[in-house]
């Protein structure tokens, strides 16, 4: 088997496993898993920028929220149906990430992190400021009756699970393919040594901008899907915490690996699930995990696996 066949097998196997899980796992975990898959889309989007392009953003919650509120507000205020609202959600994330990318890419390193953090904070405060429309921290519920698309009731557990799986699979396979393409390989080259890539004749700034837009739009899709499938949009999803979560998932699962984001989300989700039944200070676990990761496994779970066992892993 060639490495390409192996990685294709791995990706299809993961999707098959997720499909099978619906029939095997008890209802509680099936519900968790649909949430995990939507969050994994967010992590995949983040990983594209952080893991493959080498840009650490602390403001991705802004893109997630752009998708979430693009969909939510267009349904709430303009009575759009789910399908066009999803397009609005994607379009808002695309526009927001293009603007932020254009501005933030004037900087690099620590400044890039702080600029993205500041823009996301401004976005969060803007949602609060227009509280009469967005209902601020409290958020708003998208009525069950509206959450249907192409004749499927997306509030139903089964359709919701498979809708999440479908979206997850599209993003998962598309990004896996993209990072193997010449474009993706150029992004990896930029991550490894930007100056060298530039002196090979690549327009690194425009490559990075495209990476921000792709990453931001995938994150926005996750936000829109979250609002649509779980029927809720709230400012909490725009807080700094939701910018830090994808970083945490990707670091934990393995930055720059295709399956790292999913592994990271599953691990973190259940870690928090278990610890929140013990203490209300469940974010303590997140903090400890972050510190331990930076100290002992900077490459994450999938990254360490790749380094030690499966060298072919994409």
């Amino acid at each position, binding site marked *: 088997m060639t490495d390409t066949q192996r990685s294709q097998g791995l990706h299809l196997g993961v999707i098959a496993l997720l499909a099978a899980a619906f029939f095997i796992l008890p209802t509680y975990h099936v519900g968790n898993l649909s949430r995990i898959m939507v969050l994994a889309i967010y992590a995949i989007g983040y990983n594209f920028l952080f893991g493959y392009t080498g840009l650490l953003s602390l403001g991705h919650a802004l893109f997630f929220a752009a998708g979430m509120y693009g969909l939510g507000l267009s349904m709430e205020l303009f009575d759009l149906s789910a399908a066009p609202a999803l397009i609005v959600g994607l379009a808002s994330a695309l526009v927001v990430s293009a603007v932020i990318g254009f501005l933030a890419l*004037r900087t690099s390193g*620590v400044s890039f992190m*702080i600029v993205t953090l500041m823009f996301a904070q401004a976005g969060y405060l803007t949602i609060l400021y227009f509280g009469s429309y967005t209902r601020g921290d409290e958020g708003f519920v998208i009525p069950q009756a509206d959450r249907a698309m192409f004749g499927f009731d997306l509030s139903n557990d089964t359709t919701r699970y498979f809708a999440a799986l479908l979206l997850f699979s599209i993003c998962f396979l598309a990004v896996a393919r993209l990072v193997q393409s010449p474009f993706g390989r150029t992004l990896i080259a930029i991550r490894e040594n930007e100056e060298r890539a530039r002196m090979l004749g690549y327009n690194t700034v425009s490559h990075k901008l495209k990476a921000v837009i792709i990453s931001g739009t995938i994150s926005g899709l996750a936000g829109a899907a979250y609002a649509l499938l779980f029927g809720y949009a709230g400012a909490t999803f725009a807080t700094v915490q939701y910018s830090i979560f994808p970083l945490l998932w990707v670091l934990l699962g393995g930055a720059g690996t295709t399956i790292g984001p999913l592994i990271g989300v599953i691990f973190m989700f259940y870690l928090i699930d278990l610890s929140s039944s013990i203490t209300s200070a469940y974010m303590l676990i997140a903090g400890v995990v972050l510190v331990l990761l*930076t100290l002992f496994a900077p490459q994450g779970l999938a990254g360490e696996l790749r380094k030690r066992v499966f060298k072919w892993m994409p």
Partner: protein
Amino acid sequence: MDFGPHLLLASLEGAVTAAILALTAMGLSIVFGVMRVVNVAHGEFYMLGAVIAWWVTSLVGGHPAIGFVLALGIAPLVVGLMAAAADKLILQKINYDPDRTIVATIGLMYIIQQTTLMTFGPDARPVQPPFNTRLALPWFEYGESGFAMVWPWGLSITSYKLFVIVAAVAILTTLWLVITRSKIGLIMRATQLDSETAQAFGVPVDRVYMWVFGLGAGLAAVGAVLVVPIQQAHYLMGHDPLLLAFITVIIGGLGSLPGTIIAAILIGMSDGVISVFFSPTLAKIIATLVVAMVLAFRPQGLLGRSVH
């Protein structure tokens, strides 16, 4: 109240904010200047300062001033030691790699914040100010009989708030003298300029980093002890100061100490004035956008020089 007295009141409140902000931001600025790392947990060291101050004052009976003075000594010391330990145990191990330091200090932020939630609890708790006399302030008006001194109702400040301003000025002046005049300051500046050369000349760079990190956190704690009689201690209170301190350090020019002070005064005063007249949320939106734009278009800050 008329516009004039109202503005004076806003400026005085702004000066208090500026004084606390200058201390907090100075801590962040020194750490960035000397070590070139961004400490995301800075706000939590601030919060710890306030919580320890509450704890010390609630243990000590008698006049509130006794507990307060003790807290002013103990809290920064304890917080500084904790930060130094965190530096030795975590940051030194990852070689101050900029990305990993940010991630590690984010982790540290949650650890400190959530541990405080588990022990100190979710409630906000007050600390008694050591003294708190209300001082009415005069205003001059041009009336029928020429200039006259009036005492508008509500135009007043407490003696404690004046003390906060004076204390911050005194602490920052001392710090300035230490950095520019003493041997410790010389070692810090040498490490900042070129840590490798400094190491070659026998400066124990690792230890300098450890104590600079401790000093940065200690300064945040001093600010918090001073603020806690005005604002109650709460486990989430570190969030806003962190953001404001970031803004201050960036506007002032990363690592520029005089720039940090000037920016703190500018931001503290305008924060005070703006939030009296405008919605605080709008003020924060504008402030964060300004910071993002300054970084994108003038990365050296308003007063900093470009780095080669």
